[in-house]
């Protein structure tokens, strides 16, 4: 669930906040016409993203890197033209220029959505369910996580638009320019990454920029959040120093209601940003934490054999044991009682493919720690794939008996 919560928030929040800022800025300056143009382009972006998502996941016609370069190039050009036409429009307004500004904002927004949405649309079709179907709790929890992340992002965008539309024009423009600039650096990084990887461009400086940009992806989201957070903070402070004239109590109530609304949307925007930071920092770190293997359990070393009492492994859970060879190498092996069976799965805590990484138990399934492949418990003890390396053993007199010779034979697996 957490993984998909992160996917939803990380994939969308930057786009929705910039969309909110653009919406506030365009609707404030160009009224309903600007809104309609923006809505139209947003819709185009969303529909194009559906097509892209479908093409990406069902055909081999789409090369994502190439498409990203195209999308970001269009976005960067639209941002540049928006800035230029916006600046010209500040000195001299005309219907043609106004439309041009709105169209550029629309193209920019459509490009953002076209880039961000395909992976979100496709996510429910690509959930890693470990064999479970769509009518399973695994699917449901992942879907809830994804939707929560998307909902948080949309709420952040709406709150930003609301608070932006009430903010002073100059402040909103400054915040929008700052957010777009941060995103521009982000997009340049993405373009450079594709071009550098394909050896279209080269150079140490370019790679250092690509490396910095790729390793600090979340920094750009924080940057846009920080820029957008200026609006609610400023408006919050302003709300305590309201000095708007009124002629009667009704007008006074209206003014107070307006500022109450500003405070509420400001709080919402700030809370969304804080939640976004929490999701992208501690929650993400927690979700991506390395899995700890369960401790090695006691076993009995007697002569040339290691004995594991059957009653110790009767519960159907994964049990880990170890033997230290004369070369002082600790060789681990696992035992699990197979479901609906009286037999046991016994093998090294290592496989031919992933080495000594080990296995852990997750929701009743045995999973390889390195490759995250879920084992079929009934095939543990058989050779193949990512299964534990097969070792000799016997069962009798209430014990599983593993000869030390088979463990010594495989000590090289445990470096």
């Amino acid at each position, binding site marked *: 669930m957490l993984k998909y919560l992160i996917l939803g928030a990380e994939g969308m929040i930057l786009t929705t906040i910039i969309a909110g800022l653009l919406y506030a800025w365009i609707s404030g300056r160009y009224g309903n016409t600007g809104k309609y143009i923006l809505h139209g382009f947003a819709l185009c972006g969303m529909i194009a993203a559906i097509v892209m998502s479908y093409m990406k996941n069902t055909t081999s016609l789409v090369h994502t890197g190439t498409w990203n370069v195209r999308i970001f190039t269009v976005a960067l050009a639209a941002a540049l033209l928006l800035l230029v036409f916006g600046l010209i429009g500040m000195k001299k307004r005309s219907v043609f220029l106004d439309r041009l500004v709105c169209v550029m904002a629309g193209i920019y927004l459509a490009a953002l959505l076209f880039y961000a949405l395909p992976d979100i649309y496709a996510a429910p079709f690509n959930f890693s369910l*470990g064999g479970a179907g769509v009518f399973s709790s695994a699917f449901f929890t992942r879907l809830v996580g994804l939707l929560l992340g998307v909902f948080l992002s949309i709420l952040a965008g709406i709150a930003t638009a609301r608070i932006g539309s009430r903010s002073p024009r100059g402040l909103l423009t400054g915040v929008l320019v700052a957010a777009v600039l941060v995103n521009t650096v982000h997009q340049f990084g993405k373009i450079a*990454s594709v071009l550098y*990887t394909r050896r279209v461009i080269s150079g140490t400086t370019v790679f250092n920029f690509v490396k910095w940009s790729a390793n600090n992806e979340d920094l750009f989201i924080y940057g846009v959040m920080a820029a957008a957070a200026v609006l609610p903070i400023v408006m919050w402070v302003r709300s305590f120093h309201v000095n708007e004239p009124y002629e009667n109590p009704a007008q006074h109530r209206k003014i107070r209601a307006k500022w109450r609304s500003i405070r509420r949307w400001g709080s919402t925007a700030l809370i969304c940003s804080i939640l976004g930071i929490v999701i992208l920092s501690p929650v993400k770190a927690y979700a991506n934490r390395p899995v700890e293997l369960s401790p090695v359990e006691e076993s009995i070393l007697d002569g040339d054999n290691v004995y594991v009492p059957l009653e110790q492994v009767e519960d159907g859970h994964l049990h880990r044991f170890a033997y230290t060879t004369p070369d002082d190498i600790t060789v681990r092996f696992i035992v699990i009682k197979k479901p609906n069976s009286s037999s046991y799965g016994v093998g090294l805590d290592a496989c031919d493919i992933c080495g000594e990484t080990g296995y852990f138990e997750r929701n009743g399934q045995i999973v390889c720690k390195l490759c995250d492949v879920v084992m079929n418990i009934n095939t543990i003890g058989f050779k193949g794939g990512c299964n534990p390396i097969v070792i000799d053993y016997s069962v009798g007199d209430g014990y599983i008996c593993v000869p030390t010779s088979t463990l010594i034979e495989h000590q090289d697996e445990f470096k």
Partner: protein
Amino acid sequence: MKKAVALLLTAVMAFGVTATAVHAEAGFEEIPIFEDEEVGFMNVSAVYFQPVPMAPGQEDTENYNMHLECDVSAMENDLGYGLGDWVPYLTVDYDVVGTEEGNEAHGTFMVMSASDGPHYGANVSLPSADTYTVTFTFHSPAENGYLIHSDAETGPGGLLEDVFGEGNLSVTYEGWEYAPQEW
């Protein structure tokens, strides 16, 4: 002002054309890491592309950034391998180590076939951009039970011991500047 607008639009179109010129094969594109390194009788190349599902049992690609592939073909040899043929029965270990702590991936390749033939490969998680050193270690095919006729009449003339007698062979490529890609 119309001239300025026209100029800007032209610039945008030029920019767009440049972007479109970044052409690639649709969907599947192998990105080279190194090419044609020679070790023993083998020619070794390394490429990567999007993580791929592999059947049976390795269909889940969610936790990986790439599919790392090691292409091994035979050069002139006296072991019976045809010139340019894929070399089977090898065990190939990979070690990818970056300059910063934690930037690494290790394992043993699996053997598989793609549309361009058999190869050694694995889905690998390498989420950080860095400059990496890539090492492939080749174990003798004899470890996997591959035999060579050793009589003068039917044998190719050489033995695997001639190549692997002193231990495993390895290829190391330093300075792979890698940044995670969106697939």
